[in-house]
């Protein structure tokens, strides 16, 4: 990717460039070492233009940061681009960079991509090294590409995916079953001939929400998919709200995960998330930080830990059963049930981090892989005079099925054509 001008979410360390993880407590911190993914990008010929905004410790669906306050949506300045890879979303959509790297824990790549009209990939955690990235939920965190096209995302995956001794979660790459090193254009080759004919897609109607514009775009997209030869099967995940509630582990482990990260850095080990919280050193709208500091100091000792682990397994089996029963290639649904929110609503805390209607948590809490691809633009029901805003389609796949869901995303991209621009 010779000469690719790229922006890196400030959650990811860059040698010699200030890295603050969205927190004003770290505004003077400069790492001495690049994150593994940054090294790989540089070696592949990318040019690191700079770092992009994020909320404190990635703990939000929006841009609200004690360091940078709010970021503007690239199309409608009265709105938020979404988070937590906020600046990355705005930067690529506003042509400040040709691509960006974001970080996704509960949806932080896919959500800003959906809101800003970009392609965003959440890989199965561990396919890309998390070395040099601040931690929010160690089992769910993953960096990934935020790009204008599916092909560009594939190019970035070809550079970033692979084993890294510095992050043993990357051992998951051995579970693909391949024993030879992947071709250097492995993901690009996987999307070269996008094929929709005969593909079986589970349509998760229960999470479509009630937004008129979004549903209109989804209806059109699904019609087009059917015309292109896809088999669409309506599916339902029983007790989904209950499953999502019981597989959410932020309160259980984020405090430990953030603190372990801070303790691992010479220049940050004087900090803990509890002291930052006690001092009020975090954006006041971040209800998740307020909640996670109340979690156990050591989640292994918590009586809730075993139940959570079991719930996650149960959730995985429940969704996998639908894939098995209906022979699904993927499940599809809107990435989010609403469009990019008004900054005013965000600052007034209209939603909490637990009730914001993003569908990205499904893939995150399953520990699976998902891509958000832009499928059109529409007006906001509540603000019909505002400019039209992008809508993303999320394509969810079983673990390690990135090649399959990217191929589908490439097919959707070609099908939708100019509508998404």
């Amino acid at each position, binding site marked *: 990717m010779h*000469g690719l001008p790229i922006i890196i979410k400030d959650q990811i360390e860059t040698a010699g460039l200030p890295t603050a993880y969205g927190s004003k407590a770290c505004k003077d911190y400069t790492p001495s070492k690049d994150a593994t993914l940054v090294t790989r990008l540089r070696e592949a010929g990318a040019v690191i233009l700079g770092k992009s905004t994020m909320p404190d410790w990635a703990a939000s669906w929006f841009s609200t940061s004690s360091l940078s306050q709010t970021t503007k949506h690239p199309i409608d300045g009265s709105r938020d681009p979404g988070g937590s890879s906020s600046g990355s979303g705005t930067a690529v959509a*506003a042509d400040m*960079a040709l691509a960006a790297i974001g970080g996704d824990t509960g949806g932080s790549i896919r959500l800003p991509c959906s809101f800003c009209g970009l392609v965003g990939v959440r890989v199965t955690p561990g396919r890309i090294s998390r070395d040099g990235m601040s931690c929010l939920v160690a089992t769910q965190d993953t960096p990934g590409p935020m790009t204008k096209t599916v092909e560009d995302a594939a190019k970035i995956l070809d550079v970033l995916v692979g084993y890294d001794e510095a992050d043993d979660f990357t051992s998951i790459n051995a579970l693909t079953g391949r024993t030879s090193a992947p071709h250097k254009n492995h993901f690009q080759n996987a999307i070269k001939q996008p094929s929709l004919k005969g593909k079986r897609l589970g349509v998760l109607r229960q999470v479509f929400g009630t937004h008129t514009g979004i549903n209109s775009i989804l209806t059109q997209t699904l019609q087009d998919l059917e015309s292109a030869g896809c088999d669409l099967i309506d599916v339902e995940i029983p007790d989904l709200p209950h499953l999502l509630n019981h597989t959410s582990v932020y309160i259980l482990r984020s405090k430990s995960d953030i603190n372990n990260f801070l303790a691992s850095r010479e220049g940050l080990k004087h900090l803990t998330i509890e002291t930052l919280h006690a001092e009020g050193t975090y954006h006041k709208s971040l209800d998740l930080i307020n909640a996670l500091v109340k979690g156990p100091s050591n989640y292994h000792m918590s009586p809730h830990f075993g139940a959570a682990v079991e719930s996650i397994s149960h959730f995985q089996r429940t969704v996998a059963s639908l894939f098995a029963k209906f022979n699904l290639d993927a499940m599809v649904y809107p990435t989010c049930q609403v469009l990019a929110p008004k900054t005013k609503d965000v600052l007034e805390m209209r939603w909490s981090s637990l009730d914001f209607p993003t569908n990205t948590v499904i893939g995150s809490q399953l520990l699976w892989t998902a891509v958000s691809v832009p499928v059109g633009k529409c007006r906001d029901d509540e603000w019909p005079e505002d400019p039209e805003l992008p809508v993303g389609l999320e394509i969810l796949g079983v673990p390690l099925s990135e090649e399959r869901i990217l191929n589908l995303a490439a097919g959707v991209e070609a099908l939708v054509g100019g509508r998404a621009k």
Partner: protein
Amino acid sequence: MSFPHYASIADLQHAIAAGKTTAKAATKQYLEAIDRQKGLNAVTAVNPKALEEAEALDVRFVRT
């Protein structure tokens, strides 16, 4: 000052291969775009060595 308008990585790479631009020139355009759009508040830090690094890539590219 000009607006970067590349639609994809391939778009940029074709332009570089065809001699229409260089990594350095493209980087300069994007840095200008960042500066011009400061009001969007998307960038926390700009790499002061970006142009220098792009230029080194151009030299490497010519050699290979």
